[in-house]
């Protein structure tokens, strides 16, 4: 059969069939491109719409929005610094706990665990990620916060109370609770991605180390971890990206106070929480614009963090999947 692309001496019937086939293919390609275009349009529309509705606040406050601490809907003075602070501190605290745990768990699953144990443990870690945020919040209010209030915070306060980090009345809810809940929620993501990164490290690296007489741990440390280092950093960043945007669980345990306080016992507020709490009641256009500007800020920060994270993870090798989140 002659190739239709060259159109060489085709019978009329074949020519018609070829034309029909080409049309079919062309339509198909157009449909697919439209779908791709729609996806593109969606993201662009998201960013554009947020920018447009945030304009009144951007015009009114400019750069000061990022560095002022006053959030006063009555006087229509809006400064997002307390929320930025709250988001950063709670996420940082979460990273402090989650990165060692997450990478440690990943190392166990990828390198050190007995093979029969790996699938069930990996499955359970994935299930932790499947628990909805509101359920974590529920558990946070009724289990974690009382625990912190009754045991942990008084203990920390009496032993390390000279540090400004551990001063103030033990509410139970507050920055510490938010950081811990975020850590719990973020660990499975760090574990999952780190595990993929570690599995993507070529076996030749491991074999070389083992051939030199290294123990399993030494192999991991020398051959795998150092090779996958940038990918692991990427995994940590992905966890950070998640933590920055987490809304419900944090809203339920952070105490909802737009103030910058040094103590971890103090209540705080994050960018995502203020939007969740105040969006339906922003009574003036400026108030709404200010909240959306906070959302825009969050949008930009999470994109930057996630973008950087993916670059680092991809640098380990194309086989690494980040799809499942």
């Amino acid at each position: 059969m002659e190739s239709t692309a060259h159109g060489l001496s085709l019978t009329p019937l074949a020519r018609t069939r070829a034309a029909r086939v080409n049309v079919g293919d062309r339509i198909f390609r157009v449909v697919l491109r439209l779908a791709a275009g729609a996806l593109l349009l969606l993201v662009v529309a998201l960013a554009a719409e947020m920018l447009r509705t945030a304009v009144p606040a951007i015009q009114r406050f400019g750069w000061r929005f990022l560095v002022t601490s006053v959030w006063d809907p009555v006087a229509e003075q809006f400064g997002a610094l307390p929320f930025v602070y709250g988001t950063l501190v709670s996420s940082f605290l979460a990273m402090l706990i989650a990165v060692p745990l997450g990478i440690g768990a990943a190392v166990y699953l990828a390198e050190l665990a007995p093979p029969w144990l790996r699938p069930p443990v990996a499955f359970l870690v994935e299930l932790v990620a499947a628990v909805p945020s509101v359920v974590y919040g529920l558990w946070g209010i009724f289990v974690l916060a009382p625990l912190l209030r009754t045991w942990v915070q008084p203990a920390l306060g009496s032993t390390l109370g000279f540090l400004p980090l551990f001063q103030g009345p033990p509410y139970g809810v507050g920055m510490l609770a938010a950081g811990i809940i975020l850590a719990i929620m973020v660990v499975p993501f760090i574990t999952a991605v780190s595990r993929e990164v570690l599995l993507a490290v070529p076996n030749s690296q491991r074999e070389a180390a083992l051939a030199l007489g290294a123990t399993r741990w030494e192999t991991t440390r020398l051959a795998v971890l150092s090779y996958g280092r940038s990918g692991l950093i990427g995994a940590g960043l992905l966890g950070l990206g998640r933590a920055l945007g987490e809304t419900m669980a944090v809203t339920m345990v952070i105490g909802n106070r737009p103030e910058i306080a040094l103590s971890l016992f103090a209540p705080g507020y994050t960018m995502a929480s203020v939007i969740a709490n105040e969006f339906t009641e922003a009574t003036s256009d400026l108030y709404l614009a200010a909240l959306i500007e906070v959302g825009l800020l969050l949008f930009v920060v999470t994109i930057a963090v996630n973008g950087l994270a993916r670059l680092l993870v991809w640098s380990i090798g194309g086989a690494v999947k980040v799809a499942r989140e």
Partner: protein
Amino acid sequence: MTARGRRVVNHVMGGLTALAAGLAILPLVLIFAFLLFQGASAVNVEFFTHLPKPVGEEGGGMANAIVGSLILVGLAAGLGLPLGILGGVYLAESRDRRLPWIVRFLADVLSGVPSIVIGIFAYALVVLPMRRFSALAGAVALAVIMLPIVVRTSEELVRLVPSSLREAALALGIPEWKVVLRVVLPTARAGIITGVMVAIARVAGETAPLLFTAFGNRFWHQGLDQPIAALPLQIFAYAIAPYDDWHRQAWAGALVLIGMVFVVSLAARVATRGRFSGVR
């Protein structure tokens, strides 16, 4: 370091990392235990069939919230799946040069956007023009959240279909678009369904974007253009209230929600277990 010392370090690190894995799983056990302990008593027939009672009256259930969640997720899937699967097929099959890269990048960008920001988007796109909160707005928000997951999974799965199948079909003279629709997609179908289930499990538990789109409803839904109840919303409202009866119902609701999510996740897992070589 001595050989002995190195062996000790090896064991210690093995233990520490095992501990890390255990700590990562511990919250799951704790939460599940608490849900069962606190909520199991409130999960009864009334819970599944009754509407919420007014403040102060005992009893009532979350029937409308459970149905509402099912409707929202179903509608979101209806909106998001076609676009997502087509997008994934595009990324896998297209021979364009730059557009696929841009689309892939943007899909990744979208997957990192906090769900509350997507809720703002749905508010501006659907609630404001329609002048009311609606199930449709909620579904749109959830669909946008589902999209990146479906797109990426579809792309992966389509790529994994062996080229030998493609080549055989093409060699028989089947036009390319038919090859994709009739050969490639059916082969990848199970994996795509898995991806879809993962996406569904993810959005079933979303609360933040529904706060100002679906809004919540104490009664049965009255149509897609009206506010609708949803399980996560109801749990949130009951959790922050001071009534003990509502707290127990919140635990029960959480138990039902987590049950639904886990069942779907489990089913997705089982579907891929060893079914397709090369398909993870």
